[in-house]
């Protein structure tokens, strides 16, 4: 009886061990990705000239290297992605990237003077790992900000960042809900989102105060 129980425990352990170690490997890989990206950004900030074209090119490189832009683009259009035709998908993808780059470049100066500390990383289901960290202002003028990097970890492919949650607010969900609202307001027409993005890029409502 005792031997049978011991056998059962050993079999269960051997079966579960690979699952645990796979989850650990995903967490390690996701943490390493975020660490590498932060280090890359710190180098970028240290060498920043303030020139907009330089910043845009660098942001574009960072997005390509560390973010799963294809999945992000698809997700940001919500259920309406399926309704879009190939041409619309291509156009939306390019506009989405342009808007994203523009937003980061516009707010780039706010990244200066921040120091990042890694906190913890946890697997979420079998596809995501949440890597947590904190940005603190080295001048002490701004409060510390908690950040979660949602990293997509698929078997057989390199991990990539899928979403950023700041103080537990998802930037991607916010963007998706805004995009979906624009489409729904226009009777489900995907082209309305494309037109709104084009309009905003061509006529930015900058405030100079």
């Amino acid at each position: 009886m005792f031997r049978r129980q011991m056998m059962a425990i050993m079999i269960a352990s051997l079966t579960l061990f690979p699952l645990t170690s796979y989850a650990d490997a995903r967490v390690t890989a996701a943490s390493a990705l975020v660490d590498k990206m932060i280090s890359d950004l710190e180098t970028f900030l240290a060498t920043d000239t303030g020139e907009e074209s330089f910043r845009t090119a660098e942001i574009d490189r960072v997005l390509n290297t560390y973010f799963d832009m294809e999945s992000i683009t698809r997700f940001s259009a919500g259920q309406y992605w399926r309704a879009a035709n190939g041409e619309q998908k291509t156009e939306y993808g390019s506009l989405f990237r342009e808007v994203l780059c523009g937003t980061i470049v516009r707010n780039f100066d706010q990244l200066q003077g921040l120091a990042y500390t890694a906190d913890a990383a946890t697997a979420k289901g079998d596809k995501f790992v949440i890597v947590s960290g904190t940005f603190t202002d080295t001048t002490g003028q701004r409060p510390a900000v908690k950040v979660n990097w949602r990293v997509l970890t698929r078997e057989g492919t390199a991990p990539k960042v899928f979403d950023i949650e700041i103080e537990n607010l998802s930037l991607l969900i916010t963007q998706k809900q805004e995009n979906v609202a624009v489409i729904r307001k226009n009777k489900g027409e995907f082209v309305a989102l494309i037109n709104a993005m084009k309009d905003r890029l061509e006529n930015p409502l900058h405030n100079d105060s």
Partner: protein
Amino acid sequence: MMTGKLHMMMFDRLASLNACRIAGKSVTPIVLGAALALSACSSVPVEERSDVRDRYEGANRKVFAFNMGVDSYVLEPVAGAYRDTVPDGAQTAVNNHLRWASLPSTTVNSTLQGKFENAALATLHFLVNGLTLGFADLAADEEEQISKEDFGQTLASWNVPEGSYHMVPVLGPRTTRSLGGTVVDFALNPLSVFGTGDVVQTVNAAQAPVGAVSFRAQNFDAINDVKYNSLDPYARTRSVYYQSRQGLLEDRVARGTASAVSEDEFDSLFEEEIN
């Protein structure tokens, strides 16, 4: 990054305006009455809403436009001047006082929700910092973070339904439940219990508008980015409100160690891949 930070609290802090007074009378009942009257008049069919939770979207968008006008003509210029002219130390003191004034509400609501440790911490901070009317944070070295609790959160813990989404004039976004909570929280302002016609009453009357200006100044660039560069600032504000509220209800904002987003939100990504 700071954009997200602002998102979390954007317009929610305008709640502090609920203590605005005209000729010694609180304008809160007027604002709330106007909001409910507007909401009651026009329910939008589900298929015409940009978000199914937004039953009164037509009226809400009109109120949002009004609030944006108030921001453009009053809050934004005043906050800009406040940020540029008031010394950092004075701005910190104002922020400390506003946080202190919300502590009694946190104490009561934490107790009602059974969060006794948080209630005790809030009471301790309130008493210690009360020596300076909250302008100096004498307990700043304490490591424990106080989780802000309001009556809307208490109602949620009692399983009161969330109700509809409302854009309230001046106050900003609320669900029916959180709007009810706002009224109760207003009554818990510690300075409300003092007499009238003295310095304390003046501080009390100034608290709300100063709070709104202070918050706007702290998040000046980030709020402007949402206001001027979003495709649909109304929809973005609504999304941010629901997410931040959900985080507060589940105590995730203060803790900040877990993801605030439900995993179900991402199911569509993988459904798309399967199909």
